[in-house]
Structures are given as C-alpha cells and as structure tokens.
C-alpha cells in the first residue's frame, strides 16, 4: 500500500488542541515543538502497533485486539495509560451496544411492515476493518492543511 508521506502524519489542528488542553493556560507551543510532537505521536503509533502485534502473534491471532493494545502499553512502560484506556473501552462498548439496540429497535419497527433481509447488516463488535466506514469518517474530519 503506497502511502504519501503526509498520510502518516496526524492533523495539526487536533494535535495542537490536545497539547493546549494539556498544558497550563497561557503557555505557548513553538511551531517546531508542535511538529515534533506530531512526529513523535506517529512514531508512538508504530511502536505500539508493533508491540501489540507481538502479543497477537503470541496468541496465534492475525487480528490485533483491545487486549493486545493494553498489553503493549504495559510493555512500553506506559502503565499510566491503562486505566483511562480501560474506561474508554467500556464507554466505547456501551456506545456500540446502545447503537446496536437502537438499530435493532428500528428493525423491529420496520419488520412490522416488511420481512426484510436487513439481518445481514447487524454490526458485530469484533470485526476487521471496514474500509467504507472509515472513508466516510475521513470526509467528516476537520483538518488543517497547514505548515
């Protein structure tokens, strides 16, 4: 898969916001520092992915899952991330469940009208990448083409 170099970067606007929210009010970030942090973040993703992948392989799995990522954090000595990540995971699962239930409810309502073949569209929690879904997302993002 050929990626253009800029594809491996994260959007400046989002990175800047995260940094600003983390630092005390009134503290500035030089453009260079911001760019450096952005690069560091990309490297972090690669490092974390590689580490998580080792755990997946140990488990004889080809698909990275949540516990692989958590194990990777432990391995990389970012234990401090584990609790917030677990909370985020819980929140994500609840959200997923909520949406699933909502769409099932809709189906029930629709079924009163027709016998549909909509069963196939049910979302599973563990699935592999869904290209289209993510592409849709990409259109929705705000990005700053800057620098």
């Amino acid at each position, binding site marked *: *898969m050929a*990626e253009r170099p800029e*594809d*491996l970067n*994260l*959007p400046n606007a989002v*990175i800047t*916001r*995260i*940094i600003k929210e*983390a630092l005390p009010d*009134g*503290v*500035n*970030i*030089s453009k260079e*520092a911001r760019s*450096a942090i952005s690069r*560091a*973040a990309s490297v*972090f*993703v*690669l*490092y*974390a*992915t590689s580490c*998580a*992948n080792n755990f997946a*392989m140990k488990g004889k799995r*080809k*698909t*990275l*899952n*949540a516990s*692989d*990522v958590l194990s990777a954090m432990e391995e990389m*000595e*970012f234990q401090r*991330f584990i609790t*917030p*990540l677990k909370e*985020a*995971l819980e929140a*994500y*699962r609840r959200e997923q469940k909520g949406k699933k239930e909502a769409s099932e409810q809709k189906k029930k309502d629709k079924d009163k009208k027709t016998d549909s073949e909509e069963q196939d*569209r049910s*979302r599973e*929690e*563990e699935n*592999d*990448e*869904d290209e289209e*879904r*993510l*592409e*849709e*997302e*990409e259109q*929705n*993002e705000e990005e700053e083409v800057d620098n």
Partner: protein
Amino acid sequence: MADVAVGKDKCGEQRLVSLPLSRIRVIMKSSPEVSSINQEALVLTAKATELFVQYLATYSYRHGSGKERKALTYSDLANTAEESETFQFLADILPKKILASKYLKMLKEKRKDDEANAGDESGDDEAES
C-alpha cells in the same frame, strides 16, 4: 454506520477520541507484519496516542529548563527524549540541536585528537577497510 468510535455526537461535544481513526489506521497498517486490526484496537490506539501527546507535552514542559516557563520549545522535547527512559524511543527523531559552528569545532578537535593518537602508536588507529 458510523462514526461511532470517533464519538461524533450530533451535539458535537463529548468525543471519545479526537484523532481521526482512518489516519491512525493508515499508520498502523504501514507496519509490515500487521494483517488486520479490530475496531476496538483501533479506538484504543487512537486514545493511547492522545494520552501520549498529553504526557509528552506536560512532561517536557515540567522538566524544561529556563526560568520563563511561558513556552514549550523543541529543545524541551529533545531533552526529554534523551533523558527520560520512557521516551527513549524518540531519541532518533528528536535529536538535540547544536549550532553548526559548535559542531565544526567539535569535528576539528576530534581530528586533532586522532592525529595525535596516530603519532603515539604504531598501530592502526585509522579505520581501514
């Protein structure tokens, strides 16, 4: 079906994760041995990256030198990469900077040392290939 993981509510406010999952996924997939990534793993990686950005920024700021703590600079980050074990993996991409003049001076001095050593010993100081 869904911008779920990014948590983009219609009301817009509380997002689970701010970084774009599609981009995170591109970076993850650029890693050669990775075959596929479950959606939860993607969400967690994105979230972890945000936590990482926060941590790197605040750590570097706190440990930074200089009295006026009004700004976070590149050198704060480079120092962190060099001095903190946790952030060691960043050392190559966040090298410390020195003035070109200093670097040239260092090179000169090194050459002088090398020449001096070569004179003392009969052995092979110079790299031979």
